[in-house]
């Protein structure tokens, strides 16, 4: 039995009258890659933001390295967040800063590293995601979508985090660039020995980067298992999702024409 890095227990969150997380429980083993799949609006992003403390859950426990992190404040919370790196869906690069300062941001602002040293590390991390030093001086708006994703990845790994979150890492990319990003994710996670948690609805990506897959539906985890078992999960919801069928137990709230 491997050690648990993150353990979510009965986490619930409502926004007004809308229940987004409904007693979600999920255990994420240390040093492995867990992918959470699920449709749009099922609570995937809210789950990540709860773990990061950007959103406070209404109920439940979130244990990271055995410590309940929901009520962390001030210095404890800063130290806790230093464990994380995150690749955002749209990149979320700071458009007022050049690429190298984006990558070095957590080192300069978060850890008070000297700018020159942080710049060297940034260029080294950019090289890891296949970007040359000439890109470092450009601004995010001058980059293509795939390059922005790679800069986002370099920023996520810049401070050598213990845990990396990937929010829809391949959404909006062409299939080849998506696979390049998948390879980079696998390589960087292995390289750092980090625990990875990704959310996606891209099954090709999920199959490639996951050790474990969990499926979220209506704010709960309805299936959880190793990636090899995904095709014989015995769960109708999972089957419908991975084959992308409109007919099945999951119904979209659409008006039929």
């Amino acid at each position: 039995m491997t050690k648990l890095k993150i353990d979510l227990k009965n986490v619930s969150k409502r926004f007004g009258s809308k229940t987004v997380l409904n007693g979600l429980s999920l255990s994420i083993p240390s040093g492995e890659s867990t992918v959470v799949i699920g449709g749009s609006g099922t609570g995937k992003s809210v789950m990540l933001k709860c773990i990061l403390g950007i959103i406070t859950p209404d109920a439940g426990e979130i244990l990271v390295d055995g410590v309940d992190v929901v009520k962390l404040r001030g210095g404890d919370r800063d130290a806790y967040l230093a464990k994380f790196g995150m690749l955002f869906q749209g990149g979320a690069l700071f458009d007022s800063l050049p690429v190298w300062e984006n990558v070095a941001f957590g080192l300069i602002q978060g850890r008070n590293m000297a700018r020159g040293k942080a710049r060297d590390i940034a260029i080294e991390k950019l090289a890891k995601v296949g970007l040359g030093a000439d890109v470092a001086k450009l601004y995010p708006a001058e980059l293509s979508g795939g390059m922005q994703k790679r800069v986002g990845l370099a920023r996520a790994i810049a401070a050598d985090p213990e845990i990396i979150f990937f929010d829809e890492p391949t959404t909006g990319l062409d299939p080849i660039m998506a696979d390049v990003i998948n390879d980079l994710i696998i390589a960087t996670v292995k390289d750092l020995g980090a625990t990875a948690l990704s959310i996606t609805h891209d099954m090709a990506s999920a199959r490639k980067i996951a050790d474990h897959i969990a499926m979220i539906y209506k704010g709960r985890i309805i299936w959880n298992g190793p990636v090899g078992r995904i095709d014989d999960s015995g769960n109708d919801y999972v089957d419908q999702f991975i084959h992308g069928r409109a007919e099945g137990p999951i119904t979209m709230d659409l008006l039929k024409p």
Partner: protein
Amino acid sequence: MWNPFAIIGRVVLATLEEIGQLSLFTWNGVSHVVRPPYFFRLLGQQMMRIGYFSLPVVAMTAFFTGGVLALQIYYGGSQYNSESIVATIVALGITRELGPVLAGLMVAGRVGASIAAELGTMRVTEQIDALTTLSTNPYKYLVAPRLVAAVITVPILVLIADIIGVMGGYMVATKNLDFNGGVYLANTIDFLKTDDVTSGLIKSAVFGFIIALMGCFHGFNSKGGAQGVGRATTNAVVTASILILAADYVMTSLIFKS
């Protein structure tokens, strides 16, 4: 849905929620102003953007306001001893009221809108969440420097506006109304007290705080893409303008009562 009590209830709840959010936001922002670490580089940047780049707008506003004030007082007031009246009223009007309020409103339009649009875009593109994941508190990094920069630079802008406004009145009085320049300036200096200027500067520091706070608050809480950012920008300018006028009334009644 259309039950009048339900409507009143919804409005009251929404208002209370907004006041609560704003109070919490103000507390968070102000507490990060006083707690280290301080970002002096960012403060310098914001002072340039909020203060220095607002100079042309504020200067033009003050110049024409001083000029038009001189004309109106001359036409409307007694034309027999207008020479002393025009100079005094222009000086008092500009330093006490029109300088701070008009500069405040112009800066609210220019700076409040740009703060709300910038932070709003950062919110909807998840850049503010990204700050958090990079161990940087967004209140410290984004809100505190803007609050401090506005509180420092708006009074400086208003001081410059005071001088340019009086000069606007002087230009119109001497060029159009054939007043004697020396007498005009002597009248201005004789009647103007230090309190007239300082009361205006105190007001403008408060206006600066209101402008930056409204820009940050609405930007921070914007949601829903381009339309949400647009709404945040409008709300920032409108609420800042109304609060400036309301705060002006309250402060005037407090300052000049004592």
